[in-house]
């Protein structure tokens, strides 16, 4: 148990170190942009500022402080919940993030569920008869998932559904799950389908490989000899043991999901965290970008940590050595 706890503590410390590095990188990146908050906010009018005005603004934004001080005051503020302020939306970035995060979280969960529903059965089907027609079909689906850009699929689905079936729930204002669950799910359907299709491909491939490997194991033959029904054999014995690589792969896809969310949320007007970053970039609201990117990296790193700990639960052999 102490081994496990030490391991946990070490992983958490490592995660904290990574996040500090991420914070440094994000800070340096945004400072590398020519100009500062003042020129970004005022545009060309910034040139008309008198030196005294400029100095006052610099003092206001803390730009007269050394970079190291600026960095630590930003980081310290993040810890106390002060993520900065978005002048355009007249809201604090914390407030924006608290509204956007659950939306993206819901989208991510739905996408993963859809991806597993597509990827795992198709992967098992492909593995049930390697090098057959159904295997080739599975491979073709996964190749399509890997090769069709999310933005192309999203654009096409949006126009086809809107024009041919008059289905365009994303055309009206966004409803959260609590406000109007039915409308919300209709609005999430296409975005989740696009993202889910993208990550179904690697899940399908992983399932196929893992199932093929487990299938030829001795214990499967023994179970079959004992007369375990085929369905139970496939689900409990084969899939159960193929689960570790599938869970790992699903966890790894979370990064793709968060990146893809930027594109898909933008196209379907879903007010999630990805759209918040993109809007921040487009409107040059660096306070928004800086804090939001850090929040996303935090989410990503935490998911990786959870995945890592989760497969120790699924497979007790992991980490025992």
């Amino acid at each position, binding site marked *: 148990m102490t081994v496990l706890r030490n391991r946990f503590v070490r992983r958490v410390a490592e995660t904290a170190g990574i996040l500090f590095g991420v914070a440094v990188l994000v800070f340096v990146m945004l400072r590398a942009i020519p100009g500062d908050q003042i020129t970004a906010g005022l545009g060309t009018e910034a040139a008309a500022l008198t030196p005294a005005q400029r100095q006052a603004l610099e003092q206001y934004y803390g730009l007269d402080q050394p970079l190291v001080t600026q960095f630590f005051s930003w980081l310290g503020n993040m810890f106390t919940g002060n993520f900065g302020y978005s002048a355009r939306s007249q809201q604090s970035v914390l407030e924006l993030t608290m509204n956007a995060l659950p939306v993206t979280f819901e989208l991510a969960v739905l996408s993963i569920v859809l991806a597993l529903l597509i990827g795992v059965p198709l992967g098992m089907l492909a593995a049930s008869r390697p090098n057959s027609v159904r295997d080739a079909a599975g491979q073709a689906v996964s190749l399509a998932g890997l090769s069709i850009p999310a933005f*192309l699929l999203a654009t096409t689905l949006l126009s086809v559904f809107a024009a041919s079936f008059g289905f365009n729930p994303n055309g009206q204002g966004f409803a959260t799950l609590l406000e109007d669950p039915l409308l919300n799910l209709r609005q999430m359907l296409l975005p989740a389908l696009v993202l889910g299709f993208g990550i179904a491909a690697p899940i399908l491939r992983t399932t196929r490989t893992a199932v093929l490997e487990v299938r030829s194991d001795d214990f499967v033959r023994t179970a079959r000899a004992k007369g375990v029904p085929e369905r139970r054999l496939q689900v409990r014995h084969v899939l159960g043991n193929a689960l570790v690589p599938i869970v790992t792969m699903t966890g790894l896809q979370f990064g793709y999901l968060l990146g893809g969310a*930027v594109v898909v949320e933008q196209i379907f007007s879903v007010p999630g965290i990805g759209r918040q970053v*993109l809007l921040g970039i487009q409107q040059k609201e660096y306070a928004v970008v800086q804090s939001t990117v850090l929040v996303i990296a935090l989410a*990503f*790193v935490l998911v990786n940590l959870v995945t890592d700990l989760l497969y120790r639960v699924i497979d007790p052999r992991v980490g025992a050595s």
Partner: protein
Amino acid sequence: MRRSPAGVAGVVILALLAVVAVLSYAGLLPYDPVAQHPPSRFLGPSGAHLFGTDQFGRDVFSRVAAGVGNSALIAVVAVAFATVVGTLGGLVAGFYRGVADGAIGGVTNVLFAFPPLLLALSLASVLERNWFTIAVAIAVVYVPIFIRVTRGPVLSLREIEYVKAAVSTGQSRWQIMLRHVLPNITSIIVVQVALSLSWAVLTEASLSFLGLGTPPPAPSLGSMIFEARSLVFVAPWTLIAPGVVVVLLVVGLNLLGDGLRDTLDVRNRGDR
């Protein structure tokens, strides 16, 4: 490669697209991809305009061809940069271990903490935008993948007899790394290059779709698809042509990567 039909299919698709890209580099396209000609707006596909024309009367075939050229250029430069930097990083980390390994590992972990597209997006948004900086933004995302893919095999190679023998004959570390270790990990790197190219094309297309890629009027497959969104029903060819071509390009690279992996028998595949 001959034993892998998928790989062969990939090569054929890529060869076709390469011809198109070369035509665009050589300036041999039927029309100037950026020249506007309002009288011939929204012409359907015909002998004169193979893929029709867009809302400014520009020839869609020429624009798609130039877009393929641009995408290929950016993807190749980005992956070349990532391969060189990442492989060197992985070699040094795996071979020297100790402090170098710790430092390189730290940078790798930090870069891996970003969702890939988000990192490229943030970098592209802060850099002055032209084809080269886009390539750099994409390259940074793929450097850690190459580091991770090479470091592991290097760690085990350095314990193998012939490497130890080379150490005992007094060759310098760099000589050993480049002459004895690197040749033994080339198949892993080659497969990773093919797969990374397909992701680089996707990333570039996504960036330009979001308006953070090569600035207009330079044609790019992503921005063409973005512009075609509202024209789907007036001129569907403006969406179909770049859409089909971008998918073909990525399919070709994925098939090539799968074929190479099967032929060279490389099992591990880096995460995206």
